[in-house]
């Protein structure tokens, strides 16, 4: 019997040696003359177990990991093709607690299917959302998305349906769907995982968006740091075009929609939607003042829906199972599920999709299992480089847009970076200022100059020069940046800086030790 062996082609798995494992397995198949087929799937997102190899057995999948090339002969000796026991045996992957506890809606197929196999995609529920959409009016589609409660997963949390409605209501000969795949936030990789692991769900989501608002062309603006995602997306788009999922007649309908991938060139600010549009147009990525909204005057001045990868990739399940199904997950005004990315110094790092509402403590301590180094967790940064640092005292905060805002933080793109007790919060605050200085688009003085000043002031503080004066200046600078910046780069850099200062004041006190060490 032809056995399927799944070895991820996800960047995270590749970074941990999946390619060498795949080669070793292919060699062993040849040597032993066994009948087996290698499938390169996405990752399930359990990175401490990657490279995680799965085999399809009559009783379901059996997983082994983390596999090294040198483990491969013993896997074959131990008859892993039949799912037999082995020191790396993990059982049925779906029963691993980290996965069993999740609610996988957007990531339903990620890590299970061959990312560029349309047959796999359809066999696992793909295209049902698009087919349903084709039986509805444009307005009905937009209403479904609105009623689902889906809010933008790129960071700002703006209701997706309302954005779409604005574009639908704006008449123009040409409209665009732009997918923001710039994923610049450190600590985040959900966009990368879905693009590498289930690109069709993004393609389907964009096609639905195009049909809903009357746009015929889509662009995925992808950061240049993601060459593997580029490769998978281009393969998948070609497959989709061949199958008539995108093209002149989407699934044989009267709707036209086609798309292509455009690469960025290394600029964090190009993740900001208006800078992204400038970049797509071939300009410097400068943030535009709003209004006009991109929904009215976006790409090349035309009405444009610009959404994050996860926002768009969540649309197919909503159109498949209905708005109510999605909306029933979550809490408060945060509806549905959110793919939380647990990263940094953590034992069980990876992607955890769950309904909103888990507390930060549950995520970090229970699901993440504490630090990788085994030392106490001291701080976690939530929401990327512009997100606040949370101390353990705030670990009861539920994962919810409003709850985080109430604690002077943000969910952002839902990345959580864990630090142990060796972290120096003054250094982290300095890094936030430095990052802002390097990545500023240069339009606003508070962002461009304030951040550079911030670095200097924190350096003086580290040296113990007039500490209380420096802290006053930092607070002042943060205030100016917060209120005098056009976009969230300058406007939110105060979050990491002020949260570090507020929750970890001991790291900002002049310490004899610190001075002596100079």
């Amino acid at each position, binding site marked *: 019997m032809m056995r399927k062996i799944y070895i991820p082609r996800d*960047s*995270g798995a*590749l*970074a*941990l040696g999946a390619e060498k494992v795949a080669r070793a397995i292919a060699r062993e198949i040849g040597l032993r003359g066994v009948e087996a087929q290698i499938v390169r799937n996405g990752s399930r*997102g359990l*990175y*401490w177990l*990657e490279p995680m190899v799965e085999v399809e057995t009559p009783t379901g999948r059996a997983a082994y990991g983390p596999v090294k090339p040198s483990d491969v002969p013993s896997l074959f000796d131990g008859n892993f093709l039949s799912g037999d026991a082995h020191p790396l045996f993990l059982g049925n992957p779906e029963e691993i607690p980290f996965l069993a506890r999740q609610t996988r809606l957007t990531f339903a197929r990620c890590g299970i299917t061959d990312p560029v196999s349309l047959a796999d995609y359809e066999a696992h529920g793909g295209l049902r959302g698009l087919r349903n959409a084709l039986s509805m009016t444009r307005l009905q589609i937009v209403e479904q998305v609105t009623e689902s409660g889906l809010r933008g997963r790129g960071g700002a949390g703006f209701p997706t349906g309302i954005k779409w409605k604005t574009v639908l209501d704006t008449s123009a000969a040409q409209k665009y769907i732009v997918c923001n795949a710039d*994923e*610049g*936030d*450190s*600590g*985040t*990789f959900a*966009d*990368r995982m879905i693009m590498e692991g289930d690109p069709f769900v993004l393609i389907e989501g964009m096609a639905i968006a195009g049909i809903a608002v009357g746009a015929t062309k889509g662009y995925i603006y992808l950061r*240049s*740091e*993601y*060459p*593997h995602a580029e490769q998978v997306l281009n393969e998948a788009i070609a497959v989709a075009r061949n199958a008539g999922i995108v093209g002149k007649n989407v699934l044989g309908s009267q709707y036209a929609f086609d798309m292509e991938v*455009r*690469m*960025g*060139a*290394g*600029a*964090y600010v190009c993740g900001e939607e208006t800078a992204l549009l400038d*970049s*797509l*147009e*071939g*300009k*410097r*990525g400068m943030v535009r003042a709003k209004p006009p909204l991109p929904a009215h005057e976006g790409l*090349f001045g035309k009405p444009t829906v610009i959404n994050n990868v996860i926002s768009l990739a969540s649309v197919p399940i909503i159109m498949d199972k209905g708005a109510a199904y999605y909306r029933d997950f979550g809490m408060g005004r945060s509806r549905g599920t959110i793919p939380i*990315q*647990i*990263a*940094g*110094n*953590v034992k069980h*790092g*990876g*992607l955890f999709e769950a309904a909103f509402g888990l507390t930060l403590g549950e995520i970090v301590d229970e699901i993440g299992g504490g630090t*990788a180094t085994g030392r106490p967790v001291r701080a976690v*940064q939530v929401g990327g*480089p512009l997100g606040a640092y949370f101390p353990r005292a705030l670990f009861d905060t539920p994962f919810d847009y409003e709850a985080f805002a109430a604690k002077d933080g943000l969910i952002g793109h839902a*990345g959580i*970076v*864990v*630090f*142990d007790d060796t*972290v120096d919060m003054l250094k*982290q605050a300095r*890094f936030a200022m430095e*990052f802002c200085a390097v*990545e500023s688009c240069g339009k606003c003085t508070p962002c461009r100059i304030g951040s550079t000043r911030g670095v200097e002031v924190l350096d003086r503080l580290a040296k113990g020069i007039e500490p209380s004066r420096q802290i006053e200046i930092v607070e002042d600078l943060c205030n100016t940046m917060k209120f005098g910046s056009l976009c969230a780069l300058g406007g939110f850099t105060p979050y990491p800086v002020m949260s570090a200062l507020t929750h970890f004041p001991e790291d900002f006190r002049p310490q004899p030790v610190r001075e002596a060490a100079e």
Partner: protein
Amino acid sequence: MQHAGTEIVSAVMPIIERWKHEEGPLLPILNGILREFGYVPREVLPAIADALNLSRAEVYGVVSFYHDYRENPPGRHVLKVCRAEACQAMGGDAVAERLQELLGITFGETAADGSVTLEEVFCLGLCACSPSAMLDGEVIGRLDEDKVQEIAREIRA
């Protein structure tokens, strides 16, 4: 690889031709040149400006805005090391120090023997396998002393 000025210009013409009638052609052209040459030779900018009907200043302004468009030919290898938070949390700063020490250059530099260009990058999306780096487009996670040594060996080979 070294090219004389006019040779480079003729080598980029197919890339310009491929894109010039598409929407927003400038970044795809620059990215194409970067892929082909490993840098964006400044002597090709006038040809791009002419083909796209832009001023040279406009094209130069775009090129200088993006971190990727290095001005000089890189070394035979390009090593990008993540310096962002999830990598910091796992000892990334020490790894970065060690790599600079082993390669004998600092970030932004190319080794005198042309073996490698060392660059900083802010997040490779490998934050659950940190600290991370990218060597010639290949991703590497959980950098430790062994892996750092291996990278240095590969670069010197």
